[in-house]
């Protein structure tokens, strides 16, 4: 069972990355985005990293479903075309990491 869930996460990551790549190539023509933050990508990254790392905070859904959705959302941003999605991913990791530290270490 654990291996099936593991496969589910990997498939979610791969599909999310492919979608992110396709969408970002459609959305952006310039090879590099310097200093601009894509709001939609930021929301996706924050929610994705939050759900993947802090699945325990969403009690009404099975953790593996939360993590699968989270991995999909974070990989959409992580898989964007080279030069895009890095700041958004970084912010997502920081916010999810802070919440994880608060709930597991401090509380």
């Amino acid at each position, binding site marked *: 069972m654990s*291996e099936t869930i593991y*496969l589910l996460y990997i498939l979610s990551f791969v599909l999310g990355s492919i979608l992110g790549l396709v969408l970002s190539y459609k959305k952006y023509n310039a*090879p590099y985005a310097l200093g601009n933050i894509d709001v939609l990508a930021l929301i996706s990254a924050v929610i994705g990293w939050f759900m993947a790392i802090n699945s325990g905070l969403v009690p009404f859904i099975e953790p593996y479903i939360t993590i699968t959705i989270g991995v999909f959302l974070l990989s959409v941003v992580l898989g964007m075309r080279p030069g895009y999605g890095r700041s958004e991913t970084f912010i997502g990791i920081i916010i999810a990491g802070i919440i994880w530290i608060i709930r597991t270490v401090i509380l």
Partner: protein
Amino acid sequence: MANILLNVLIAFLVGSVLFGLQRKIMARIQMRPGPPVIQHLLHTFKFFVKESSFPKTAAMPFYIAITAMLCVIWVSAVIVGPVTQGSLLLIFAIYALHKIVEHNAGSSSGSPYGKLSCVRAVFSAAAEVPLFAVLIIIYFKTGTMDLSQIISFQTANGPLIYSIPLAAAMFFVLILSKAPYSPFAITKGKDIISGYETEHFGLLRGYLMMSESIAWYMLLWVFLTVFIGGLNPLLYLLGMVTLSTIVAFINATTPILNPNHSIMMQVSFAIIGVVGSLILLL
């Protein structure tokens, strides 16, 4: 059967993503944006829908059969490893077969690049097989070649990486030699285009790339299982990402070695590893 399919699929996907991650890290170290992490996977899929053509110089049907053989041996490795946790000796046999397949894939195409790679595959086997002498050290330490018993040994006595670190270093050098762009990757050095894969196109290339992804996953899996112990899937993934990252750092900062130097360096590692480990065991 379902378990085999599940594990093969995981091995292929994780191996491909790890190759992509490796390229991404290498690119960032070299101040380039680099390809997306799933680039290797996309490349593999791409070859499955590309036209397959066969060189006039190819030795049929060997030229085609060799790609299936590479796939079969690494699927067998998945069955021996994660599925049944069988004997480590079988993994060694599969690795030895991999060297033979590399050799034959190069020679069967008729391409001069393939032939050079074929010669280098034999040459590198002279160094990589001694590195597999790590098996003897593991046997001396644990008294078994069975993966499940090695895991049990480590549960009782702690990870082998602490007690036989030189053996772990030897195995790491072996893993390094299988990574693309590594200083020891002489069979696929860019001076001979893509080495033994140069004249394999379309579907055949797709199979070769798929097998390489599974091979990468399996080598990392064996390293983690034998030297750290049985882990849960998440820790396996973390371990594989860590090892791939270290390999990426080494690959990004070192040039590919001349075949003679590559072999001599690997043999030196093997001698230091075997002798040092035996001294540590005594």
